[in-house]
């Protein structure tokens, strides 16, 4: 069973085509990265999944069928525009939001106690929300997204305002949810987090699907035939089949000639008596792929 099945949806606001024939699916037990430049149509897509907007055309299935009021109880959403009720104590705010997700008040309180302790917010539970720091409010918001143990979690920039310790904790929590079989859609511009967490990604631009697949597949698709090596002894001046050798922080970056094969280079290095601790095909960072793809899209649009 897929958790979300989006088939050929489009949405137009006035003269802007926000989403343009977009299709994708999200499975249980995966963290799905929804990426794209600002204004690409990510938030509109999320809002259509959540039935805040209706698509002009196309079909969306959430948790095995069209969206219903009951299904809202099984979804946790951390929107881009986030906020909490400011004038009431933290615990009361979180209990109220949890009961709106169908939880009983006493269960909500018990669950929240665990979460608040885990996020170091327990001692602040009687403080008014507006008295908490930005980072604390962000943690509270994450608690509110997860406390009702949703089947589907949709989070927009979950790591904003978090320090490295809390970032690590949130990552662990998201991985734990994935291992429990929950589906998580994460929208973020922090590509390093996507590389660390996401199993599959969808990159959209101008409302259209640009990249879609597992992280591995996409990175392989963009992999150049370049090699990274870390030698223990000195590297030869030139190697057959290598057009350029660059030294980077104790590692060497070898740019291959057209015809050369990585296996052949490995053989040449060993024959030349180089002792290697690392030999890998250079995979471009997601950040570069993102920039490359988006720039290419821009160029196409302008032509």
């Amino acid at each position, binding site marked *: 069973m897929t958790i979300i099945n989006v088939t050929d949806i489009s949405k137009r606001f006035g003269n802007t085509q926000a989403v343009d024939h977009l299709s994708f699916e999200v499975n249980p037990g995966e963290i799905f990265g929804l990426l794209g430049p600002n204004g690409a149509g990510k938030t509109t897509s999320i809002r259509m999944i959540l039935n805040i907007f209706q698509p002009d055309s196309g079909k969306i299935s959430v948790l095995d069928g069209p969206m219903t009021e009951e299904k809202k109880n099984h979804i946790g959403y951390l*929107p881009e525009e986030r906020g909490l009720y400011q004038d*009431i104590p933290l615990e009361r705010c979180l209990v109220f939001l949890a009961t709106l997700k169908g939880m009983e008040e006493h269960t909500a309180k018990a669950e929240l106690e665990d979460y608040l302790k885990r996020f170091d917010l327990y001692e602040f539970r009687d403080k008014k929300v507006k008295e908490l720091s930005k980072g604390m409010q962000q943690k509270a918001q994450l608690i509110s997204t997860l406390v009702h143990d949703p089947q589907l979690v949709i989070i927009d920039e979950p790591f904003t305002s978090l320090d490295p310790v809390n970032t690590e904790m949130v990552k662990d929590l998201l991985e734990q949810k994935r291992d429990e079989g929950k589906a998580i859609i994460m929208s973020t511009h922090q590509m390093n987090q996507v590389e660390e967490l996401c199993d599959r990604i969808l990159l959209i631009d101008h409302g259209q699907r640009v990249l879609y697949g597992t992280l591995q597949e996409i990175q392989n698709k963009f992999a150049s035939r370049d090699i990274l090596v870390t030698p223990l002894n000195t590297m030869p001046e030139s190697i057959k089949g290598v057009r350029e050798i660059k030294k980077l922080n104790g590692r060497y970056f070898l740019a291959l000639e057209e015809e050369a094969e990585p296996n052949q280079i490995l053989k040449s290095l060993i024959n030349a008596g180089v002792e290697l601790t690392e030999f890998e095909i250079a995979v471009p960072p997601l950040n570069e792929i993102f920039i490359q793809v988006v720039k290419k899209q821009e160029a196409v649009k302008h032509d």
Partner: protein
Amino acid sequence: MTKIWKIIKYEYTRHVFQKRFLFSLLSLPVFVLVMVGVAFIAAFFSIDTSPVGYMDPGGMLENAVREEMDDSIFDPQIEFLPYQDLAQAEADLQAGDIQAYYILPESYEQALQVELVFYDEPAGEIQSQFNDFLTDNLTLHDNLDPQIEARLEDGSLITMKAVDGSREMRQDQWFVVLIPIIAGIMFFVVIMTSGGYLLQAVVEEKENRTMEIVITSVSPNQLMTGKIIGNIAVGLTQLVAWLIFAWIGLKVGGQFWPVLQDFSLPANYVAVLLLVLLPSFVMIAALMAAIGATMTELREAQQVQGLFSLTIMVPYYLSSSLMMNPNSPLAIGLSYFPLTAPVTILMRFSSTVIPVWQIAIHILLLIAFAAAAIWFSGRAFRMGMLRYGKKLSLKEIFGKGVEK
């Protein structure tokens, strides 16, 4: 349903159990109490209990008998001292031994006039005590039937009746006229309280950005219904509390002013009050919610709310004209305009007989306005809920571009 209930509970408790609410709840009765208390104390200290003298050269009050009266702290029985000598009475008045003296001329039975001499005019209660004293003693000689005598002492009590018999009003129940006006003021205060809270609740969710989380937990209709009922309940709590205070006030006040004891409200009066006020209440609450949904900042929304309250208050500015000429074109016109209708209808109702068919039309119209306001606010809300920076225009609300 349970989610609506949770929203109602949240909206209700976050206002009612606040110090601010208790303060505003108690401020009105405390204010009234302080005002009444000050008036009481002022009245009490201004009562002059010194005797009043009288000159009776005609001897009409010879062997005068003074009946014991039911006195109260505000109407204590005053002693009446007979004088034979005008100079003596004048001297005692100047010395402050008496507060005034009456002169009953010998020609009193023809002229029916007395003279009252004073520096500060004695209170009305004292003058009516002397009046009773005079009546009692003058009729004593006539050996009247006690029933006739009693009737004579009671004086006149005029009851006005409408031609069709639907309404009547006793002279001593004049304050019943005030009921619709007081009800109108209470309505105004309560609707402005509830409406203000409602406005705040809707705008706040946009201001603090909780809207998107909330509408992915409940439907917009559930949210709106919960908010409207919750905040109306806050206003009604205030109203009920005030009515209880008023009832206590009547009971306590009845101890001092017997006229308050036989205070009663005719059933048709109450029925019309409720039938006019309930749809008006819903109508204005829904309009407030609509304002909240279209505005992006609380301050801005409160300015628009101010315009509404000014309009609702218009009949009060024109109250003398409306009550003197309750069937004038102005009065009738204002009772057809949704915002001025509630107060105008109540005012006219207190000073004229509005035909039943007209009342029915007014009530039906108000119900229709209420329904339209709910429709309008639902639409404004669905369109405006995720607008964070931009106001919603009327054209957009009535246009086709609404989100399904």
